[in-house]
């Protein structure tokens, strides 16, 4: 078979760096083949994608050769353009579209440019591509500005547009990052189906091994611009050679059915919910089938598992008094319905948040101010008195070496996540709400963050409310789970029971998405 492209010994040097940002990179890609480039943000994956897309940064110096199809090997320094159609599939996290212009309109323009056809024809191609993708939203739904679309719909649109150009090569740039495992699973299946139909090659950049394993592809592990290991994903799952690859695969969350579980019978009830109607207007009576009742004891941990928009956050807002709903909610034996807004706010002083929203922390604040604000604001302690607690918390999360006067704006998403944990530690909360704690982080950062939260839970004895779409994360941080779909709880129970014997289709889909092998193939462990 004639290779679609052969890159030999590609080296890239940036003007402001001493070491090359990509070195000795070689790749042969055949038509219809998938190769995954696995590594963190500065591993060099982006440089390869930009090189193939013809959009390298100015000043970058290239050496090495590249060959397309049966053509002659060309010098990489000339940045030769491929003689076939290359499609680019980005993730929504990079915000690739103008937020105020219709997604369909923008993508139709892209298709028209790629296919060199009129706009009407491009729209027809897009519509056709969308119709072929099982599970994609409708054309009419996508004819809206991206700021009004959710990430899942937008990702479907980007995938349809990429497929509509009938490419020979698709460059996938973390396309399903920050989506839930089940949604990523569905989108990956759709991508593979289109690949089979159109026979395009895929070069896929990923941060974690989940993507490689879902695609079942040849995997290049990159670190600091070099390939440190290369093998099929299935072989890598069985064992890794390089320490970095081992660290990446160690971060792979895996739900385990027979994992020993902490006792859920803990202290006094902290949170008691009785007859809560999430979908019921405030002044109306809650129907029996919609009423939700549960209890969370001190030191226990409950996971709210479901897709975005399934009702998990609505429940969280209700139990914290951020949004009034019909029903009875007792927080630390206090009925929230009897409290004023000001008193409810005071009650929330005993709640800590760890969120995946990078904008949750005030970017103007310093590291020190962020961590000790709960002590100064709630207890009116002076900075001298809070310094010891603050430094201890920063040490626990690994930020002690940072200059405390650095602002939050200068921190990476991983550092901000750890900073939230440090702030939570210092506030000694009764309840910790953890909302998609690993979203947006690379593999090693996910391991570290997960370990921090597990240590926090073990030492602090706070109750945990974990909001996630990943059962593996739920199992790591919680004992029990409630599965949400369409604003209702469809199933609940001990996590190991849910993993071993999911009854509802929503639960099954979530469990299967979290597992690396399908449930039906799992021998003993999932």
């Amino acid at each position, binding site marked *: 078979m004639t290779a679609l492209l052969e890159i030999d010994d590609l080296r890239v040097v940036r003007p402001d760096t001493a070491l090359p940002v990509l070195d000795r990179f070689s790749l042969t890609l055949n038509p219809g083949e998938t190769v995954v480039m696995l590594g963190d943000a500065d591993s060099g994956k982006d440089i390869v994608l*930009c090189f193939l*897309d013809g*959009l390298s940064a100015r000043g970058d110096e290239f050496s090495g050769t590249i060959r397309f199809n049966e053509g002659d090997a060309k010098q990489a320094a000339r940045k030769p353009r491929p003689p076939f159609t290359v*499609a*680019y599939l*980005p993730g929504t996290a*990079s*915000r*690739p*579209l*103008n*937020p*105020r*212009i*219709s997604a*369909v*309109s*923008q*993508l*139709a*323009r*892209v298709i028209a*440019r*790629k296919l060199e056809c009129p706009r009407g024809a491009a*729209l027809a191609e897009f519509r056709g591509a969308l119709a072929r993708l099982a599970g994609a939203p409708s054309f009419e739904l996508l*004819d*809206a*500005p991206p700021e009004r679309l959710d990430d899942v719909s937008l990702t479907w649109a980007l995938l349809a*547009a990429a497929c509509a150009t009938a490419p020979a090569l698709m460059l996938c*740039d973390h396309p399903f990052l920050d989506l839930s495992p089940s949604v990523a699973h569905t989108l990956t299946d759709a991508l593979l189906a289109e690949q089979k139909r159109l026979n395009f090659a895929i070069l896929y950049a990923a941060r974690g091994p989940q993507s490689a394993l879902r695609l079942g592809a040849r995997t290049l592990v990159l670190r600091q611009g070099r390939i440190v290991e290369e093998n099929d994903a299935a072989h890598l799952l069985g064992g890794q050679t390089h320490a970095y690859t081992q660290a990446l695969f160690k971060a792979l969350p895996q739900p385990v059915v027979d994992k020993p579980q902490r006792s859920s019978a803990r202290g006094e009830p902290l949170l008691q919910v009785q007859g809560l109607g999430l979908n019921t207007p405030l002044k109306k009576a809650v129907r029996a089938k919609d009423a939700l009742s549960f209890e969370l004891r001190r030191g226990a941990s409950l996971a709210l598992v479901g897709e975005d928009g399934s009702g998990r956050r609505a429940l969280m807002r209700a139990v914290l008094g951020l949004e009034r709903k019909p029903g009875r909610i007792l927080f630390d034996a206090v009925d929230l319905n009897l409290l004023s807004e000001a008193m409810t706010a005071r009650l929330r002083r005993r709640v800590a948040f760890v969120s995946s929203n990078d904008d949750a922390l005030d970017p103007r604040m310093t590291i020190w101010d962020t961590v000790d604000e709960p002590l100064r604001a709630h207890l009116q302690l002076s900075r001298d008195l809070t310094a010891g607690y603050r430094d201890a918390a920063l040490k626990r999360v690994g930020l002690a070496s940072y200059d405390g006067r650095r602002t939050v704006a200068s921190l990476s998403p991983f550092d901000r996540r750890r900073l939230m944990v440090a702030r939570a530690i210092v506030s000694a909360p009764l309840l910790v709400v953890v909302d998609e704690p690993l979203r947006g982080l690379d593999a090693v950062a996910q391991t570290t963050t997960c370990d921090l939260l597990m240590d926090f839970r073990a030492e602090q004895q706070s109750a945990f409310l974990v909001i996630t779409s990943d059962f593996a994360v739920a199992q790591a941080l919680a004992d029990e789970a409630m599965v949400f779909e369409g604003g209702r709880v469809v199933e609940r129970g001990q996590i190991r029971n849910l993993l071993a014997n999911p009854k509802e289709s929503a639960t099954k889909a979530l469990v299967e998405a979290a597992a690396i092998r399908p449930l039906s193939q799992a021998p003993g462990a999932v």
Partner: protein
Amino acid sequence: MWRFALRESGRFVLGLFGALLMAAAIASLTSSSHGLIADLAAIVTRLFAFLRLDFGASAISGADAAQELAAHAPVTLTLIFLGLALAIVLGAPFGLLLSSAPVRRATAPVIQVVSAAPVFCAGLALAFVARKFLGWAPGNGEFPPVQQVLHPDQSALRLVMMPALTVGLAGMAAIQVALRRSASEAQGEPFREGLRRLGLSALEIDRAYVAPMVFAGLFQSFGEVVAALLSAAVVSEWVFKCPGAADLFVKSVALHDWNVAALILFFFASIVLFANFFGRLVSEAIVSVGRSA
């Protein structure tokens, strides 16, 4: 779009009412003060009079305040429209050129130097050029009628050009600032790189997506541009002795002719409020064009 238009209309009407209230408060100064309650009653009386289109009489000439405004407003409006036309025709293309990324950084200090000059300094400089190099005699309180401005002869040109240029320079500076502000906002948007990587050219992205954002931003600031033109009109009429409403306002305040001063202030505030309203509507229309395919 209709909801937006309705909301903005409400804001415009509320703004007009506020301006009317302010004018009523100023006009009530013609009567002497008899305590807070009496003053408030005088303001309310004046407000109702304004709503009946009774704006009182000038304390100086005795004529209707509305008639005084009607006699002087065309001069000011002519200057503003001419200034706006100059600002758009000369300022907008120049502003777009200077607001593209690499040029914008380099020219930022230069733009600040230019915009640091108060309007009256620019007016004096233009009057100097007119008299010293063009030999044009200074204005003597005359201003050609609107019809003559549209088809000017040499004498009309001499009377109109420098004042209009003074106002136009202020408008150009305001347009510069607005364009640079919206261009810098558009520059930072991540979709520019995203669309490049998806396959569009930089020119196509700028033309199809960035330019509308920049123009929408310019129209958002239309009220500021008009306010700058009005301020410049005050100075321009003073320097070049044009018998406009702005000049009348200055004289009315100096002579404590509060009926006339109040009406002119309401007139100018209405112009700015309308410019804000119109600019926001156009901005929203530009943005909403691309909302659906």
